[in-house]
């Protein structure tokens, strides 16, 4: 290897392992000038953004149009340019393909690893340690009807260590080892997150929503975050904590999207275009989390994305398709298990059953409100008090409590997905679980899937109170689990809560119908000896209601539910429950869980769902207010370099309006702070003759200067000549609309052409918070 090759190899290694191409320099430009010297980097490009700032959507759009126009005009020059223009047009689809492939692969790996590690808490497969319980007993002939998972190759820990499989000591040893494994996994996960990628904790969806609305969080979608989130997600789901993997999978898919878009300059240099890719990547994430590609696209449209033009719809569709296809081809289980909670029954439902479905919807809405309020209160406590100083200890304590309480109850001991699967399924003759312990009529000769309603046996009663206990436990523990410093998702726990409640209601209705089939409400549709009530359907409806109550999704929820279960006959009950739960939950509070977390963190997210109905004007919101210092402006051609630098150092505004002169405050344009700093630094280093006394001018031609004056500095190229302006009597309703629809960062207020003040996005958000009687100081970022 010669030297240059070695350097190239090192560059690639550095790029893959440690360098984040988007992380230019952390921290404020002014205070950490020393930091920048230390790092000794080349100057970043004019046009990139600082961390925790909002992008300028209009500028990104116009830059993209310029780039496109340049490529189109050059494409007529030669064949090579034409090919380059074709490649540029196709690069979007190539990025989607790559995202789908990687997201599908990672989801497949996560699924397989979770399967194995969950069973590791209870025992190990002796013939091949990488098999989970079910896989281990796959080839054995010793499985019986009643105990379908028993085989000699898979042994519980008590069997392995002390050669006992029954009895009190075996139970205690299994219990103890279950807790130990759970603690071990959780501790590893939180340590990895803490040491390598602190941004990998939480669900990720609130931050991705904010990023997609134009906010910059450097490193949030980086390579290390991707790696750590994938690895620790497996660990936390296997540790038995009450969380799911769907939200983190959306984050993982967006990290993949960010990674691939940084390989193409079309997306890496333009933050607006990059967010189109991220919207599509979010769709691919939900698609692989649930095996629901259409639901994924709708979820991205409804919940995650901010701007969703039709082109993004197409791209998301393609990404979700490729991801689902990749997951299917990696799926080691052949054709089975493609639909996550496949239901095999097609029994019809009856109009009279809408009443319990609506009741379940009300329950879902109430639970959603309760969960959001309690979770936000707990997270606020974590944020402000001493509880937040011990994240590792908190994770360990919650895991210990979860493991200790979950082990005795068979419904919480197994993984939540298996629980939901069992609750959704109907009891045919082939089920042997406790939930299906009905009293069978020995003379019954009906075929397998049309068994009439039967009275409940003792097993069902045991199952009912165990489910009730599990329901209460899950409701309480999820409040404390969501938001810890580990990757945590919300979908599966909410669906579990709803499924348990729904199944209990379903069994109740079924028994009521069996024992009192002469009541008026049952008489018309439920004859004795008929199969009227399907408790599994109630579980599905309950799951949809609870998920809708927490996240406030509507269309995407129903589509995801029927893609999850394959039960197309049940769309109407699902819709009824989703609508009811949304109404009930909205009656108590307008925010879903993700908006509530955005609010808690103070992100500058201007929600499209918020309505602004107050009659304030632009003058009421603009800065400077009465009594404040006048606006800091730059003049067209009468300030020196030193004046500009002093102005920048003394204030911390993001940009400065440029006016003709201090007397006539007619607006010329707007200059960004970061670009001023960079341009002046650049000029001092590179251009001859530019000193502190040089005049800075923004016009085309330099102003008239006395002789012997230093070389003036032309900064016209960083000036935005078309800043958005409104007059002072513009109603705030219109201003908020403009900010939302165009994605502005700031807007200037003029009267008869004279500059009066400026309204930034932060001011708008603070004003909205004030109008809604919330704390305007909670808006933290710019």
């Amino acid at each position, binding site marked *: 290897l010669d*030297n240059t090759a*070695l*350097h190239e190899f*090192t*560059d690639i290694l*550095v790029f893959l*392992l*440690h*360098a*984040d191409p988007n*992380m230019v320099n*952390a*921290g404020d430009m002014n205070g950490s000038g020393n930091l920048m010297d*230390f*790092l000794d980097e080349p100057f970043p490009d004019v046009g990139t953004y600082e961390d925790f700032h909002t992008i300028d959507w209009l500028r990104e759009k116009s830059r993209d149009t310029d780039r496109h126009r340049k490529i189109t005009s050059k494409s007529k020059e030669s064949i090579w340019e034409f090919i380059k223009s074709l490649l540029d047009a196709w690069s979007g689809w190539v990025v989607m393909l790559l995202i789908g*492939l990687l997201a599908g*692969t990672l989801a*497949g*790996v996560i699924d*397989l*690893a979770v399967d194995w590690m969950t069973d590791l808490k209870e025992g190990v497969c002796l013939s091949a340690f*990488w*098999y989970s319980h079910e*896989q281990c007993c796959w080839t054995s*002939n010793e*499985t*019986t*009807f009643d105990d*379908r998972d028993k085989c000699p190759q898979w042994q519980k820990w008590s069997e392995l260590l002390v050669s006992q499989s029954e009895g009190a000591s075996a139970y205690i040893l299994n219990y103890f080892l279950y807790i130990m494994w759970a603690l071990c996994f959780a501790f*590893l996960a939180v*340590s*990895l997150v803490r*040491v*390598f*990628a*602190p*941004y990998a*904790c*939480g669900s990720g969806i609130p931050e991705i929503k904010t990023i997609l609305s134009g906010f910059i*969080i450097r490193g949030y979608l980086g390579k*290390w975050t991707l790696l*750590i989130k994938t*690895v620790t997600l497996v*660990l936390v789901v296997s540790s038995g904590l009450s969380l799911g993997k769907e939200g983190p999978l959306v984050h993982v898919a967006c990290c993949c999207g960010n990674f691939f878009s940084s390989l193409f300059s079309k997306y890496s240099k333009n933050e607006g275009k990059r967010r189109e890719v991220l919207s599509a990547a979010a769709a691919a994430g939900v698609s692989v989390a649930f095996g629901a590609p259409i639901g994924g696209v709708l979820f991205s449209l409804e919940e995650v994305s901010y701007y969703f033009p039709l082109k993004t719809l197409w791209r998301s569709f393609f990404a979700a398709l490729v991801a689902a296809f990749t997951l299917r*081809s*990696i799926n*080691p*289980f*052949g054709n*089975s298990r493609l639909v996550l909670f496949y239901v095999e029954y097609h029994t019809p439902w009856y109009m009279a059953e809408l009443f319990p479905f609506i009741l379940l919807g009300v329950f879902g809405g109430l639970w959603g409100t309760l969960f959001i309020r309690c979770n936000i209160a707990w997270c606020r406590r*974590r*944020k*402000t008090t001493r509880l*937040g100083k011990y994240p590792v200890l908190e994770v360990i304590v919650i895991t210990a409590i979860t493991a200790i309480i979950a082990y005795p109850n068979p419904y919480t001991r197994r993984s939540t997905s298996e629980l939901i699967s069992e609750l959704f399924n109907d009891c045919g*003759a*082939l089920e042997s679980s406790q939930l299906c312990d009905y009293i069978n009529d020995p003379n019954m000769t009906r075929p*397998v899937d049309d068994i009439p309603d039967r009275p409940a046996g003792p097993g069902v009663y045991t199952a009912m109170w165990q489910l009730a206990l599990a329901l209460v436990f899950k409701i309480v523990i999820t409040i404390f689990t969501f938001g810890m*410093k580990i990757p945590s998702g919300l979908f599966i726990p909410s669906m579990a809560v709803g499924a348990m409640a729904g199944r209990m209601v379903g069994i109740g209705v079924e028994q009521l119908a069996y024992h009192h089939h002469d009541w008026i409400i049952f008489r018309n549709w439920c004859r004795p000896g008929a199969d009227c009530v399907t408790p599994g359907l109630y579980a599905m409806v309950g799951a949809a209601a609870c998920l809708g109550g927490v996240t406030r999704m509507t269309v995407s929820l129903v589509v995801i539910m029927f893609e999850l279960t394959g039960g197309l006959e049940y769309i109407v009950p699902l819709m009824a429950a989703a609508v009811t739960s949304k109404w009930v939950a909205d009656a108590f509070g307008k925010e879903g869980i993700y908006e509530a977390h955005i609010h*808690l*963190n103070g992100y500058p997210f201007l929600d499209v769902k918020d309505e602004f109905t107050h009659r304030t004007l632009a003058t009421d919101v603009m800065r400077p207010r009465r009594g404040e210092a006048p606006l800091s402006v730059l003049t067209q051609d009468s300030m020196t370099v030193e004046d500009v630098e002093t102005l920048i150092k003394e204030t911390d505004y993001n940009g400065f309006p440029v006016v003709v002169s201090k007397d006539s405050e007619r607006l010329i344009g707007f200059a960004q702070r970061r670009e001023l700093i960079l341009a002046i630094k650049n000029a001092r280093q590179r251009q001859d003759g530019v000193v502190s006394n040089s005049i800075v001018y923004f016009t085309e031609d330099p102003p008239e200067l006395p002789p012997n004056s230093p070389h003036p500095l032309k900064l016209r190229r960083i000036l935005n000549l078309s800043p958005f302006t409104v007059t002072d009597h513009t109603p705030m309703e219109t201003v908020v609309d403009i900010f939302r629809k165009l994605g502005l960062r700031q807007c200037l207020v003029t009267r008869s052409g004279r500059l009066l003040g400026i309204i930034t996005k932060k001011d708008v958000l603070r004003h909205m918070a004030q109008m809604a009687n919330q704390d305007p100081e909670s808006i933290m970022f710019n």
Partner: protein
Amino acid sequence: LSLILSSSLCLCYAVNSEDVRCKCICPPYKDHSGQIYNKNVSQKDCDCLHVVEPMPVPGPDVEAYCLRCECKYEERSSVTIKVTIIIYLSILGLLLLYMVYLTLVEPILKRRLFGHSQLIQSDEDIGDHQPFANAHDVLARSRSRANVLNKVEYAQQRWKLQVQEQRKSVFDRHVVLS
């Protein structure tokens, strides 16, 4: 990444003979208890008559018995499972080793290397026992030499600074992701 992709894509077509089966579940019938039958047959032969052997009921009852049984053809790819789990465990092991190195071994090494000279600590890092606490001064020292190995170390130190900033935002100041 490409390793996982290529290995999974070419291995999912390698079907082991042990990896297919037909599974028939038959519920209790009269005085026979429920049973599960597994047999390695092809998909077209996956039904009650081929798989349930020996038939527990006499001739005339076979049809009634078989009507209640449910037979499913299942296949899996054991190679995919094995490869995936082993790759995952090796990545996890590497990360754990790196974490142990960064948190425990490296500070001890640095302390021995730089001996008795006081480590320059800025105001923020006084009492900072978190990993990467001496990234600043290492950066200062390494700036003078410029060769290949140093490039990697340089990038590593810059990465450590980034992670430290992230950790401060998330864990200490609770500004993001609370």
